């Protein structure tokens, strides 16, 4: 049946007592031992795909994986130079740390949605041949950006040492934010990847949207500037901005060692849930038609 039942699992369930082939050639194994049941199979695929992306990213670069640490560090140095000298944001406490925490958080978001959006289109040759769970591809891109994020945390620790900010127990709350952010990115990647299959325009549009979104989020400018926005509606929008909330959550726990406000925590949770629900619904209802468009 060409619907949702995974063949491997179904087979394991219906024919467990079946003996292996009696005269199988020496180098073959009974089919039953070779395959994963459906769920585990997807996990192995995810792992292999993340490994692949990771290897490809740093293959043939001399410093290799060190770039994952070096890149955010250098970006931070450039940005802190630019913004503290030209825009005089230097009065923000621990400005380099303020920058790098927000930047790596934003990087996860922009990397995973950008790559996630293209993931189904890029997996087209494969999807035309093999029956694989399609949601594996956008989710993999989010996981891959998480791996990069984890490496860039080393850069954050270096900056913390430089700035003399001591780690506090409050930092233990940061992983909660990361999990919520992951959920938000997974949902959005599912949504974007499904839409991009039908409308390739989205690919071009999204980069513009991301840029606008980046400037609307207090990544390098002080959070207090939101208050100076003259229109009430715009202010509400800026506070509701999911990325504002995730970035604030990270900064509060990592830099300021304070508990994020209830509004921020609730927003982070709600945005993650909305994104997941919407992304999942759209992806599931359209994934069967992908093959006709890729």
């Amino acid at each position, binding site marked *: *049946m*060409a*619907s949702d039942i995974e*063949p*491997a699992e179904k*087979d394991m369930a219906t024919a467990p007592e079946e003996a292996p*082939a009696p*005269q*199988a*050639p020496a*180098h*073959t*194994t*009974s*089919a039953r*031992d*070779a*395959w*994963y049941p459906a769920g*585990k*199979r997807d996990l*192995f*695929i995810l*792992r*292999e*795909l993340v*490994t*692949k992306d990771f*290897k*490809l990213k740093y*293959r043939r670069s001399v410093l290799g994986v060190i770039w994952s640490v070096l890149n955010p560090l250098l970006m931070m140095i450039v940005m802190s130079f630019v913004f503290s000298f030209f825009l005089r944001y230097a009065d923000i406490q621990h400005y380099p740390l303020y920058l790098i925490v927000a930047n790596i958080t934003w990087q996860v978001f922009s990397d995973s949605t950008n790559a996630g959006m293209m993931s189904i289109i890029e997996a087209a*040759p*494969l*999807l*035309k*041949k*093999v*029956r*694989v769970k399609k949601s594996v591809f956008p989710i993999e891109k989010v996981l891959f950006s998480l791996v990069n994020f984890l490496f860039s945390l080393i850069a954050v620790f270096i900056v913390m040492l430089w700035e003399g900010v001591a780690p506090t127990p409050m930092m233990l709350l940061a992983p909660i934010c990361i999990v919520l952010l992951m959920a938000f990115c997974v949902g959005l990647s599912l949504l974007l990847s499904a839409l991009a299959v039908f*409308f*390739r*325009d*989205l690919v071009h549009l999204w980069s513009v949207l991301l840029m606008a979104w980046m400037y609307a989020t207090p990544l390098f400018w002080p959070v207090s500037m939101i208050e100076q926005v003259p229109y009430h509606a715009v202010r509400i929008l800026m506070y509701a901005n999911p990325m504002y909330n995730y970035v604030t959550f990270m900064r509060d726990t990592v830099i300021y060692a304070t508990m994020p406000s209830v509004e921020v925590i609730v927003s982070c949770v709600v945005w993650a849930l909305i994104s997941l629900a919407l992304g999942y619904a759209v992806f599931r209802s359209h994934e*069967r038609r992908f*093959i*006709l468009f890729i």
Partner: protein
Amino acid sequence: MQDTLNLDNGGSVFLGLSSTSLRVGDKLQVTPHFRGVEKEDYLCNYVWNLNGSWEKGDFDSTIEHVGHNIAKYSWEFVPDRPGRYRIAVDIEDSQGRFKGNVERWIIVAGQNGFLRPPVPPADAPTAVLADDVSMIFNIASEQFNSLKEYFIAAAKHELTFKEFRALDHISFEVKRGEAFGLVGTNGSGKSTMLKIIAGVLEPSTGEVRVEGTIAPLIELGAGFDMELTAKENIYLNGALLGYRKDFIDEHFQDIVDFAELDGFMDMPLKNYSSGMVARIAFAIATVTEPDILIVDETLSVGDFLFQQKCERRIKELVESDNVTVLLVSHDISLVERICDRVCWIEKGHMRMIGETDEVCEAYRSLQR
């Protein structure tokens, strides 16, 4: 392709073969018979070539000159491997001017004597059941490349579609352990059918039931990443086929050995030839016994030695009675060697289904 050549002085030459179907090790007598002329006035060159194909009509890839014997008019030929051979004799006159050639095909079966695997019993369980499958594609009469165009058309109710029936009421049943072939010309719907069986495409109407695991041969460009090394690709591809990691660990060397690519494992795949990639793909897909093995045109990439190895492996799998092989090809000779039943699809319609010889004969008569 002709077995008789009319010479310009009224005589003719006919290529005589002692048999057109034999086994490895059997002796074939090749004798050109001259009629109406003295054979001593002519010279003959005898050439055979393995696995030439009807479609391609080329035989430059594996030409082997066995003998250039002046004033000899009969040869013995003992094939050392199974396959389809082209036997040809070039005729020259006494001045060495080429007059033409005569040629015929022979089929050579493997040592075990079975040209094709045995047909499974009638009560064998069903592996693939296609029940009245139709596939209709809606081809947009206009191409929408942007949201704007789409919304404008949608608002004006101008979204019209042209129906294209890629498959029209196809039904067949494949038993477990059977080797089933799908033939048809380009664009006939073979691949669409295969996609439906593989579960990547859903039929518009009808149903396909598949029992068991499917291992498609993932071809060049799909599932392989050219930047990764062969070893990394084996793991990636294995994962996509659903293999367990410990299983791949255990059988890694088997895959390498079968592909005959020991020592190339840490080389990026982009440095491989397409034939080498096909070897790896085949080795991965057949390292274990899938319930259903789907063989697309992939095999045609490898060299003839590897093609024969693949054929042997496919036959091994079929003979184990557990594996169902679905072979899709327009290379009729491959289908003839491997399959025991064939379905011929033409322009989405099922033209014929039945024993290989019958269907292939009919299919071939279309080509001429």
